[in-house]
């Protein structure tokens, strides 16, 4: 009887220890990206003087979008990519650009985040926005600032409402 109970307790302890190890180690394999911030309704001022066109280029606040990005140690490094999808209608003369405005914060001293600090055009196919390098620890960055720019706004584009969905994806290099 005593032996049976001991074996059961031992089994439970083994399961708990293994679960703890597995759940901890899972962080070594799982890369995550959480997108925060608000949708950007581009504030295009009304034209009040006949003969004028729109200013043409508009910029969001510097942290319109923020990312919380984690890269596991075992993956080493990862990149965050972005593309847009018409939702449902976009005009190809409206040019979206994007840049990273801050490194965010991290507890990992040796980890690094790089790239994407200059505006680059966003298309319907993925472009690399920035990459994160994990060194000796899980590279977890929070509140990485993302800024958007819209150019090409003109009278020559048919009046209407245009929407695009910016899709961010984290993946291995």
């Amino acid at each position: 009887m005593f032996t049976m109970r001991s074996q059961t307790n031992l089994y439970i302890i083994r399961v708990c220890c293994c679960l703890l190890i597995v759940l901890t180690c899972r962080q070594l394999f799982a890369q995550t990206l959480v997108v925060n911030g608000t949708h950007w309704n581009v504030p295009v001022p009304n034209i009040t003087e006949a003969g004028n066109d729109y200013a043409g280029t508009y910029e969001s606040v510097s942290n319109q979008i923020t990312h919380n990005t984690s890269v596991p140690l075992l993956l080493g490094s990862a990149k965050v990519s972005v593309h847009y999808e018409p939702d449902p209608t976009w005009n190809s003369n409206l040019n979206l650009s994007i840049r990273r405005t801050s490194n965010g914060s991290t507890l990992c001293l040796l980890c690094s985040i790089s790239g994407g600090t200059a505006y680059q055009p966003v298309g319907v196919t993925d472009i690399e926005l920035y990459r994160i390098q994990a060194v000796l620890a899980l590279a977890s960055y929070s509140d990485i600032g993302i800024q958007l720019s819209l150019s090409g706004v003109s009278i020559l584009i048919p009046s209407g409402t245009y929407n695009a969905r910016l899709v961010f994806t984290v993946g291995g290099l």
Partner: protein
Amino acid sequence: MLRVGFILVLVFSFFGGSLYAQTSGSRNVSVTLPAIALLDIEPAGPITLSFTKPTEAGLPLSNPTPNTSKWINYTSAYGTSGSSRIITASINQTIPGINIRLQAAAASGAGGGTRGTPAGLITLTTTPTVIISGIGRSYTGNGVGNGHQLTISVVPNNYSNLSAQTNTQVTVTYTISSN
């Protein structure tokens, strides 16, 4: 049996977590461009056209030099289902024996898009008359030197209807609208 359960727990713990790991996210960008039909005349202010009386009996009135100081500026935007626009002009009153004429030149200066086509020399009446047509999505630029230069002139049309007048004010109204 316990070993099988143990292994299953480990497998689901590991891969089950991966199923829920978020690797993408999105945010929307939205921009609204309204329909616009704006027009103005630059520079502001009245113009004066005065006939000169002849100094020799039997000669006609001397017509004033046509005024070319005014320019039409406009901004036109409409949706995919919209149609081109026109500009009409009319006067609030006619002067007996006198034709008030207006001619818009082709667009020049700054601007872009499909700017309109002038209708040629028009004699203004109290009924709006098209002076520029076929205005697409376009803008002319703002101020003197941009858009369509206007030539405004007055000529006698019937001497028998003429009467001496001073400071007769005529207001020209310009309207931009859908065709």
